[in-house]
């Protein structure tokens, strides 16, 4: 029995490893490119290994881009946006998935329609709203629209619908009101979905480019992707420095991911779910 499990896992490992290699090989290429000279990086046929590693590309990134202040802005915007999105989306999702009220259908449709509009379209009117509020060049300007994104509502709504209805019914018998049910029963059960949403929202926030550019015009309020994007010039791109910068920039996101994985795993121990 044990051997069978092990040999089955061996096949799994081979398949997963092959897939993983496909997934990360561009990432390795990025690393190699980050150590090349500009000439080497665009040479055709491509040079695989840099003749001598140019670690200077990494320090060049710090010279060209004010990494410190940008990273602070990016982190603040991320924390605010993720917190807001988790709260807003879980509330809305809970109401739509678990409560019975008038106009549920049309209101839900209203939320979902927003998902379907090309996001580029919202940028200018949203900018006008933020301007009217007097919040240009601020952290909340970076985070606000993303907090209300319909994406999270849909993800959590879909997840909450899979929870058995008996949960709420039992709690109501015990005299709990919807707010208490949301807080004490539904939310804890959604941990894997909340972790997934946190990862994805962090990612959206961290990589957002167009929006920060438009609402924050003051240099010391800029975010990291803006700094990275400046490396794509009108006359060609400095690929090695761009790659170096991009590698450094994704590290925090990989960290977020590694940490939140625990939430997935903890989900296994979840009790209270009946078929």
């Amino acid at each position, binding site marked *: 029995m044990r051997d069978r499990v092990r040999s089955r896992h061996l096949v799994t490992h081979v398949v997963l490893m092959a897939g993983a290699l496909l997934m990360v090989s561009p990432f390795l290429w990025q690393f190699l490119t980050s150590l090349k000279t500009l000439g080497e990086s665009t040479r*055709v046929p491509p040079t695989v290994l840099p003749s001598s590693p140019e670690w200077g590309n990494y320090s060049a990134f710090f010279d060209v881009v004010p990494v410190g202040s940008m990273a602070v802005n990016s982190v603040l915007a991320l924390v605010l946006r993720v917190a807001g999105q988790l709260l807003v989306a879980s509330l809305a999702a809970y109401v739509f998935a678990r409560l019975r009220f008038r106009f549920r259908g049309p209101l839900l449709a209203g939320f979902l329609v927003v998902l379907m509009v090309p996001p580029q379209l919202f940028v200018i009117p949203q900018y006008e709203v933020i301007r009217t509020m007097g919040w240009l060049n601020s952290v909340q300007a970076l985070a606000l629209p993303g907090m209300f994104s319909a994406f999270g509502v849909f993800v959590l709504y879909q997840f909450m619908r899979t929870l058995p209805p008996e949960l709420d019914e039992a709690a109501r018998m015990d005299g709990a009101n919807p707010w208490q049910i949301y807080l004490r029963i539904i939310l804890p059960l959604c941990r894997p979905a909340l972790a997934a949403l946190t990862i994805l929202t962090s990612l959206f926030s961290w990589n957002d480019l167009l929006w920060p550019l438009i609402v924050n015009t003051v240099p010391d309020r800029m975010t990291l992707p803006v700094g990275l994007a*400046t490396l794509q010039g009108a006359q060609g791109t400095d690929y090695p420095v761009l790659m170096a910068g991009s590698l450094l920039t994704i590290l925090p996101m990989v960290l977020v991911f590694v940490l939140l994985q625990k939430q997935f795993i903890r989900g296994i121990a979840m009790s209270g779910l009946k078929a």
Partner: protein
Amino acid sequence: MKSTNTMLALAATAAVLTLAACGDNGASAGGSDGGGGEEVELTFATFSPDQEPAIRQILDVFEEQNPGVSVEIQIIPWTDYWSTLQTSTAGGTGPDVAWMLGAKIGQYIDGGVLLPLDEAFEESGLDIEKYPEQLVDLFVDDGTTYALPKDFDTIGLWYNKALFDEAGVAYPTPDWTWDDVITAAKALTKPDGSVYGIGAPMDPQATYYNTIYQAGGEVISEDGTTSGYDSPEAIEGIKFWTDMINVHHVSPTLESFADTESVAQFMSGRLAMLTTGSFYAIRFANDEYSSQNFDVTELPAGAQEATIINGIGNVALASTEHPEEAARLAVFLSGEEASRISSETGTVIGSYEGTQEAFVDAFPQFNLQAFLDQAENGVVLPVSRNTDAWASREGEFLTPAWTGEQSVEEAAANLADAMNEALAQE
């Protein structure tokens, strides 16, 4: 108490909605004279991180000469520069001073969002005659100057000496004609496809605009109202390039350039010649292979001499809270001092006469004087009020000519129709 809060919230929401509905421009343009020893802070938007060190140097001089004024640089990525500038400017929250191109300025002038610079220019004591005339005109509308060119670039014929030596072909000279280019390209092309004589990418500024004017044609009529693409001269100018691919087989195909941009192919030793701008000098100089093997000369001549000249201007935006200082800064950034500093760093050719030698000296391995010598034949990059409305369609219509699916005559006629339609809407 509770109801007051609700009322406030409602009122605030209503205010947000109505104000946003107006989409007014003047909301933040509070009046201010900026005088009285007050600290004045200006924001200056640019799209080139390469030039930031030079710009910082220029701004230091400006701040020294204008006590109490400090300037912050805002670098906006090139790909988003124009949409960001347009949105923030239309919203009245844009930078105080910004880089501007001739192709874009028409919209800004029509929108009334630029400050006239005539007064500030007069005070500066600069001489308008010292700028390339074609470029100055680009930023003047109805006798009012909205920007001055800070630099300029022209197109030259870059070549790879090593490949010429290998094929035993003499280096290009300023008196070359189109036929000389074709003959040399044939001799330089290797049958195994490892080296092509010349690169013929579909790049208006670097390739076919130049030859259209050299053939005696024009891209747009002088008054900016009709397309010149359907003239026999324009067709001849385009054919020069498409023939390189489809008739002489001395250039890689358009597909190949889509996969690997022409400059990268040139820097990899796959092309013996490439016509492109002075703006690549710094990149070639920083690459060992290119620095050792490349040189440049004037463009070959067709029926006449011509090279496309283009330049960046500095505008002051009307939404600024400090119009006087902003205008002064915009002029200063295009002035003699700024021009000298720009040239010395070798990134660009400063626009002010007498400051340009520094650019030539910056990279002695290349004959950069060729770019300066050509300036007198410079034809300014063609523009209209809304240049992008038609310029963005050129690629689409000329592609079949480049791939050989359509004759140049046919493609050019279709492009001319589309362009005239776009121009009629301006």
